[in-house]
């Protein structure tokens, strides 16, 4: 058993880390892409894969929006039933599958509030598309970022947590983790880029 500390350069010139063309992210996005195309084809059983992959995202956004577990489970159920029934409306070229699922989640959360009289019915004056709920948008951003931070490997995850939640400077982080300053800086840059991209890909309201 041995461990080496360098990044893996591929034969094709890409460095296997962070934002590069080849690496964990593309391993992950390739798996996501397979689930996505299977769902877009309407393959038998593909909803189960979609559910396994993205139900925590949908459920947690629902839970943080509606406030209790039973209602969040109802919303999540409505989202995945609607996703399956409306799968022909999913266009993989128009956006990511989790982004599309979160779009349905926004509508089902609004339905939930409406059924409790806490939101007006959509009308000519206030069409549903315009009625973004800023609280739900902020929940979505936070859950997506929490998810992406959890998916960063170490030391990237640890570095960001120290910068974000302990308000440490990159120099303090480098000293604490005994890492070169330049390494910490480049991890910070790449990780922040990943977080921004995650919001852009999955968090944008369509």
């Amino acid at each position, binding site marked *: 058993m041995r461990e080496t500390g360098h990044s*893996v350069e591929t*034969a*094709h010139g890409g460095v296997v880390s962070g934002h590069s063309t080849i690496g964990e992210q593309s391993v992950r996005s390739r798996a996501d892409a397979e689930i996505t195309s299977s769902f877009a084809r309407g393959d038998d059983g593909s909803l189960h894969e979609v*559910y396994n992959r993205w139900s925590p995202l949908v459920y947690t956004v629902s839970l943080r929006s509606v406030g209790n577990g039973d209602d969040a489970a109802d919303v*999540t159920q409505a989202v995945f039933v609607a996703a399956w029934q409306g799968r022909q409306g999913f266009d993989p070229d128009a956006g990511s599958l989790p982004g599309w699922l979160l779009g349905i989640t926004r509508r089902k959360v609004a339905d939930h509030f409406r059924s409790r009289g806490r939101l007006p019915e959509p009308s000519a004056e206030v069409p549903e598309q315009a009625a973004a709920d800023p609280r739900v948008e902020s929940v979505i951003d*936070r859950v997506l970022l929490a*998810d992406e*931070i959890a998916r960063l490997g170490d030391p990237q995850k640890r570095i960001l947590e120290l910068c974000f939640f302990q308000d440490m400077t990159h120099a303090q982080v480098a000293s604490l983790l005994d890492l070169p300053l330049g390494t910490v800086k480049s991890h910070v840059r790449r990780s922040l880029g990943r977080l921004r991209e995650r919001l852009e890909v999955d968090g944008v309201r369509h």
Partner: protein
Amino acid sequence: MSGIDHMDEETIALLALGESVAGVDAGHLQVCAACQSKVDQLRAVVDTARTITDEDRPMSPPDDLWQSITDQIESDGAVFSKKPPTGGLRMSWFALAAAVGVIVGSLGTIVAVDQRNPAPTIAQAELEPLPGQQARGIAQVRDTTNGPVLLVDVPNLPQPEGYYEVWMLSPEADSMVSIGVLGQGSVNEFPLPAGMDMQAFPVVDISVEQFDGDVTHSGDSLVRGMLDT
């Protein structure tokens, strides 16, 4: 455009975190909308991230929810398969191994498989070809009575110039553990080092290595996949 010296991306990231960076031309941001806009975009991400609480971390819905979903879809009259698609041919060697009762490793090792009580699979990865490569396969971690083993099945590997080595990488592929040299047969089995944290090294990778005395990863990988635990 000449004469404009934009800020480097690392400086922009640090400014977004609210750090003061020594030697930075603070006046640049006042005159350069492009750099200011990059700082603003990242700062919005940072500001949101700093409001995350434990409750924002994705958690799984209740266990019985999937059943409720399939029940509702079926009650609407849809013909619906609850089972995820299987790996098809790529899975067949496990079925074969179970039928025969043994897995014959390429190095002559014979792993007895108790058919009534097979070693449970605790993680699995689809090994996908890296760009320019054709081979694909699967890897499984099984919990045997002698500890966890990694089973690797990559059929139709081309004859290498050198040899193939199996690795487990960190998610960022910046640290790794050498698992062993891949033998001639399709199915290879490797004991995993006792106490190894699989969460820390979840990516199974097969590289081409030269007989050059260099123990580090060549960087020339054929297939790779993340274990799904």
